């Protein structure tokens, strides 16, 4: 099959020779992309501030001690949920409005539906935040306790007790409707497109199905249908699938779309693309239980999850090799083309993450690192180091096109990259090391305080690493603000460095 390169070439920006291609303006609604990006960056800012609050709490520097509505326990959940549903989901949805119509040559099902989804999604994210922050304050109502007693259900006004499934129960149905509409809105243009599908569309299409199913599974079963250990198994599957079947396929799908466009050459190997997609689709969802090794979940199921996790590492290697094969001969782009640098930095981090997975998923490693900051470092590496960096790269590439002018300041773009990637890498190393220390403190049976006191140097380092990442975001926001209001570019990013095709 040669559909990959040719499909990519066909839909790649409608260059000369693509006489039959519809005009870009007829396909893409640029305004909604800007709105999605603004929402995404707003929630990212909130999420990072929440992360900072928790980090300060751990080192005893929290300036808002004892303030109920700024309780670190509640804002810890804002931190993770705002990243998943506020930042990543919004940024992905915005980018899909660019990529899907251009890949399929068909508009999304309905522009009005797009705007409706945009509104609904912001309502979902904001009500989740409001629910998490205010829920526990107003939890103690007689009618809630009466309902909880009648149905024997938790009935939390605020967060529910499942990581990333904290979305309060009264929002879950709306979120499911939103996800179903997203799937319909984007699947229609994919369905209308002719000929074999390009790799990106495999990932997108699968992601629309998976995200809906994953959300429904995680937000309904452990709360309403199953209890105890079986619910733990479903919970593990949910957190895992949310990363593996929502964030990962959308991220890789976008990489398969943007990297060839920017390098102006097809993906190195179509065969490896196939291996990568089908390997991920098969092995990734089988691993849920690896989040709960040594729990009362039956051991043979734990072994199965461990083996498929190690298997997916091999699949990941094929994907990363494929992208580095594509870069061969264009290595200079890594240094000169900022979006490409973001993308490939993310891929290096992705490889580290997955390599780490293959090790940390073993029972030997789990003895030591389970429940420690090692896992927190791992989570930041994948969510920020990979997917956020990719989205920053995409935004760096797309904003000048959406706003119709070059970036205000090239050096601020560079600062954004270095502070984000550098800060994240320091945070990752720091937390990984902290995890090893914590594991040994615990198993050595020293008093509990030994582990929290011993963690202080690492936690303090983490605060500053996080501040660096936040400073990077501020550079980006200032740059965006100045660009958007049309300030004259001081040292404009050369078209090439912003990933603009020379033409």
């Amino acid at each position, binding site marked *: 099959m040669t559909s990959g390169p040719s499909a990519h070439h066909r839909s790649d920006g409608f260059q000369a020779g693509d006489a039959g291609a519809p005009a870009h303006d007829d396909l893409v609604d640029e305004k909604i992309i800007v709105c999605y990006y603004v929402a995404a960056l707003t929630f990212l800012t909130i999420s990072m501030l929440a992360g900072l609050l928790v980090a300060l*709490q751990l*080192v005893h520097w*929290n300036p808002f001690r*004892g303030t109920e509505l700024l*309780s*670190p*326990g*509640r804002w*810890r959940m804002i931190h993770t949920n705002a990243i998943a549903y506020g930042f990543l989901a919004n940024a992905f949805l915005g980018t899909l409005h660019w990529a899907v119509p251009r890949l399929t040559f068909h508009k999304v099902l309905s522009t009005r539906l797009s705007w409706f989804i945009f509104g609904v999604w912001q309502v979902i994210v904001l009500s989740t935040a409001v629910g998490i922050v205010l829920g*526990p304050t107003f*939890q*103690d109502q007689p009618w809630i*306790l009466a309902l*909880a*007693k009648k149905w*024997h259900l*938790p009935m*939390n006004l*605020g*967060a*529910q*007790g*499942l*990581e990333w499934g904290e979305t309060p129960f009264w929002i879950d149905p709306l979120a499911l409707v939103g996800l179903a509409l997203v799937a319909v809105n984007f699947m229609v243009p*994919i*369905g209308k497109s002719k000929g074999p*599908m390009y790799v990106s569309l*495999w990932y997108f*299409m*699968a992601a629309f*199905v998976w995200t809906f199913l994953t959300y429904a599974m995680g937000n309904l079963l*452990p709360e309403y249908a199953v*209890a*105890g*250990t*079986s*619910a*733990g*198994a479903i*919970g593990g*599957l949910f957190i895992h699938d949310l990363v593996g079947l929502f964030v990962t396929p959308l991220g890789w799908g976008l990489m398969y779309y943007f990297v060839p466009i920017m390098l102006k050459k097809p993906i190195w190997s179509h065969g490896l693309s196939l291996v990568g997609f089908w390997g991920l*689709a098969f092995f990734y*969802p*089988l691993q849920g239980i690896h989040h709960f090794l*040594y*729990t*009362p979940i039956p051991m043979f*199921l734990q072994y199965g*999850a461990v083996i498929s996790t190690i298997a997916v590492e091999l699949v990941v290697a094929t994907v990363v090799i494929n992208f580095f094969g594509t870069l061969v001969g264009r290595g200079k782009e890594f240094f000169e083309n900022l979006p490409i640098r973001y993308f490939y930095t993310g891929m290096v981090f992705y490889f580290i993450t997955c390599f780490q997975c293959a090790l940390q998923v073993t029972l030997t490693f789990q*003895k030591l690192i389970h*429940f*420690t900051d090692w896992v*927190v470092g791992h989570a930041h590496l994948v969510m920020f180091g990979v997917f956020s960096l990719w989205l920053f790269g995409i935004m760096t590439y797309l904003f000048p096109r959406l706003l119709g002018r070059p970036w205000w300041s090239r050096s601020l773009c560079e600062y954004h990259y270095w502070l984000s990637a550098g800060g994240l890498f320091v945070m990752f190393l720091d937390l990984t090391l902290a995890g090893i220390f914590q*594991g040994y403190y*615990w*198993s050595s*049976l020293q008093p*509990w*305080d030994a582990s*929290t006191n011993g963690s202080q140097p690492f936690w303090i380092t983490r605060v500053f690493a996080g501040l660096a990442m936040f400073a990077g975001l501020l550079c980006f926001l200032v740059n965006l603000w100045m660009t958007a209001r049309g300030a004259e570019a001081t040292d404009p990013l050369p078209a090439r460095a912003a990933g603009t095709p020379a033409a």
Partner: protein
Amino acid sequence: MFESKSGIFFIAGIGFFLLAFLGNGVVPMIMYKDRHEQTAEEVVNKRVMAQFRDLAQRYPESFQNAFGEPTEEACAEALRLGRQLYVGEGCWHCHSQFVRPVSNESRRFGPVSKSEEYDNELQRPVLFGTRRVGPDLSREGGRRGNDWHAVHFHKPQVVSTDSPMPEYPWFFDGSPDKPNRRGIAVMTYIQWLGSWLEEYPYYEELAEVKGEQ
């Protein structure tokens, strides 16, 4: 097939998802399907009742306003509310609720967790936990007195100098000797954790429990 819309939709999208759901989700569900899921009323036991009555004696006015008499029904209500707050306040993001069979955990916390411990309404969704900044709490009940917990919730550093745990003054009406309904509920919930274990040693010291045996 591998690049067609139907192949991606049905095999990868729905098929592989269901396969994993079957293996990772349905198998444990079938294995545990005959387990009885206890209600909050059914998990109230003599040990947590002893703690509940202790709260009533220690903070008579607050308790009277919050739950009236320390009956088993009131205790179930306190457990439900306490668990809702435990989740809503994010306690479970820093405290796990399962003791692993490795890393000397049973020597630190108590007996290794068993599946049947999680078959109740208050483990919906199950609170295995994701991170241990503070210690595991699944055997916390009865280890410390209610007065300790009250002071600790109000300002953890008073009793645990270097603790990075946040303060929860909104569980009290001004001072640690005046827990409000939320405070009493959370303390009841914490004292319940592990109280179902017959072999758990700390309860033997509670005169009231001993007397009832």
